[in-house]
């Protein structure tokens, strides 16, 4: 059906809202409803989303990712690191690298995929879905040391995952389509990566500082919102034009802002007031981008990705726990509790889809399909580990 874009947008908002009402009854997060609705409404099934709206996926993804990166940047302050503690930070880093290494190796060695595709999967595997974990914790009224550690790790994970993703994507981009000898290839990849990362840090820092500096000219809450949005988008747009990491520059912008401005929370609060419709649209369009014809092709790689990601998270937590002397409960169960994966992974995959024309759609389709699986079964795994660690009394 070829719908008018405005009508289609309106339907998306209303039907997504109704879907979220249904999915809450089976104790799953709203984002899962948006994603499933997107798959159902997309071109592969009902086809009720206009081409105009689907064509806007790229810009919606970029806007949402710049919001997420900017918001996650606020956690990178000395005070926040002190509050969260070294064990949570170590475990976060451990499970991020666990997922990256195991997934990259598994995809590279067990399938016929080239290294840059394996690296892309590895980088995406680092993300978790903190919203799902928090929902399970709240719904089951879990508490205690294990629960606090789990929440700390999932809250911090996406920030760490985005940094790793930005670094890996920079390298993967330079590896793609290059057929030189390994030394030249590795050197060129690393060099381009360093330039991309360093450029992002400089741009993000500059815009973070400018956001604080000129905020004295803002006169009311509406202007504050427009001002914040303007700086976030200019930062993302300029990073994109200059070919540096949009994610990293957004995070650095948020991080610099929170460290130079005592009242920086006003910018983040302001953004939170309007981000929901963007997030809704992002999830629905992510779902709509799932090409169901790809399901046949993605089978084995998808299964390997799902298994390797879980093994990587569990192994990463286990090894880090042994090093830092964490409790047996954390060592054994924390990795399993990190199973859910949703928004940030989808955003990363959409970005990969924009970067790699041929392989991008393959990667995106696998991530959308695996996200559905992780979002449907992940919360149950999280609840299981909360029970096993006696954080809750019954399942």
């Amino acid at each position, binding site marked *: 059906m070829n719908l008018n874009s405005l009508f289609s947008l309106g339907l998306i908002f209303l039907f997504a809202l109704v879907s979220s009402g249904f999915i809450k009854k089976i104790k799953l997060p709203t984002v899962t409803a948006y994603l499933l609705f997107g798959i159902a409404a997309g071109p592969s099934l009902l086809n009720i989303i206009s081409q105009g709206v689907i064509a806007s996926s790229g810009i919606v993804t970029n806007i949402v990712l710049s919001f997420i990166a900017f918001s996650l940047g*606020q956690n990178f302050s000395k005070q926040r690191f002190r509050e969260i503690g070294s064990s949570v930070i170590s475990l976060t880093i451990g499970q991020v690298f666990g997922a990256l290494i195991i997934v990259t190796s598994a995809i590279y060695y067990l399938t016929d995929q080239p290294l840059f595709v394996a690296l892309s999967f590895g980088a995406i595997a680092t993300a978790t879905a903190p*919203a799902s974990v928090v929902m399970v914790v709240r719904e089951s009224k879990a508490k205690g040391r294990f629960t606090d550690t789990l929440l700390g790790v999932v*809250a911090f994970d996406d920030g760490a995952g985005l940094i790793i993703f930005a670094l890996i994507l920079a390298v993967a981009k330079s590896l793609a389509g290059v057929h030189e000898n390994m030394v030249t290839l590795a050197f060129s990849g690393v060099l381009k990566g360093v330039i991309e990362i360093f450029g992002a840090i400089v741009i993000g820092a500059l815009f973070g500082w400018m956001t604080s500096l000129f905020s004295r000219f803002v006169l009311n809450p509406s202007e504050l919102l427009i001002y914040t949005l303007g700086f976030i988008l200019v930062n993302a747009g300029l990073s994109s034009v200059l070919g540096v990491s949009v994610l990293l520059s957004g995070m650095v912008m948020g991080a610099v802002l929170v460290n130079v401005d005592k009242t920086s929370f006003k910018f983040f609060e302001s953004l939170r007031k309007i981000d929901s419709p963007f997030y809704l649209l992002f999830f629905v369009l992510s779902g709509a981008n799932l090409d169901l014809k790809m399901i046949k092709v993605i089978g084995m790689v998808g299964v390997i990705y799902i298994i390797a990601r879980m093994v990587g998270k569990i192994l990463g937590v286990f090894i880090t726990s042994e090093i830092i002397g964490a409790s047996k409960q954390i060592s054994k169960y924390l990795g399993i509790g990190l199973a859910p994966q949703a928004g940030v992974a989808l955003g990363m995959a959409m970005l990969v889809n924009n970067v790699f024309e041929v392989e991008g759609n393959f990667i995106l389709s696998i991530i959308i399909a695996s996200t559905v699986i992780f979002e449907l079964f992940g919360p149950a795994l999280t609840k299981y580990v909360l029970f096993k660690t006696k954080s809750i009394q019954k399942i």
Partner: protein
Amino acid sequence: MIKVKDCIKEDIIKVRRGTPLKEIIKIFNENKCTILPVVDEDNKLVGKITLDEITSVFQPQSAELNQLLKTIPFLDTVPEADIDIDYLFPEMGILVIADEIMSNQYFTVKQDDTIAKAYSIMKVNDTQVVMVVKDDNDFVGIIGMFDIIYAMFKEKGVIK
């Protein structure tokens, strides 16, 4: 131009970092106040407590962890979960202290700033109250939207 020091409320009840929750709730109840400044032993402003901070004790996680969770994108908010009575226990009145629940998200002005500046901060940030501090962050008092309006009426002789 009227200065902040001309209309500041200085007789504000404030609490120390170590003040227990029991005492904080008593102060809120008896004085019907909406905000409690938190100061350290040198009277430096270190935080504020409003009803939002008090309701954080209805959550099993620490205030720091709750702050971190607020930064998570796509989080489902369930308003009734904010006041879950199951997490309250009697010893909390003594065990929980101001330092654990206070927020460091507040706005400040100096005594010599104009009330126009204080008013602008309130309007931009959609808040009714701003803390007043000296250059070294020594707490002096608070100034509210009504204090500003009252001072203006007084200045023009509308009231005496």
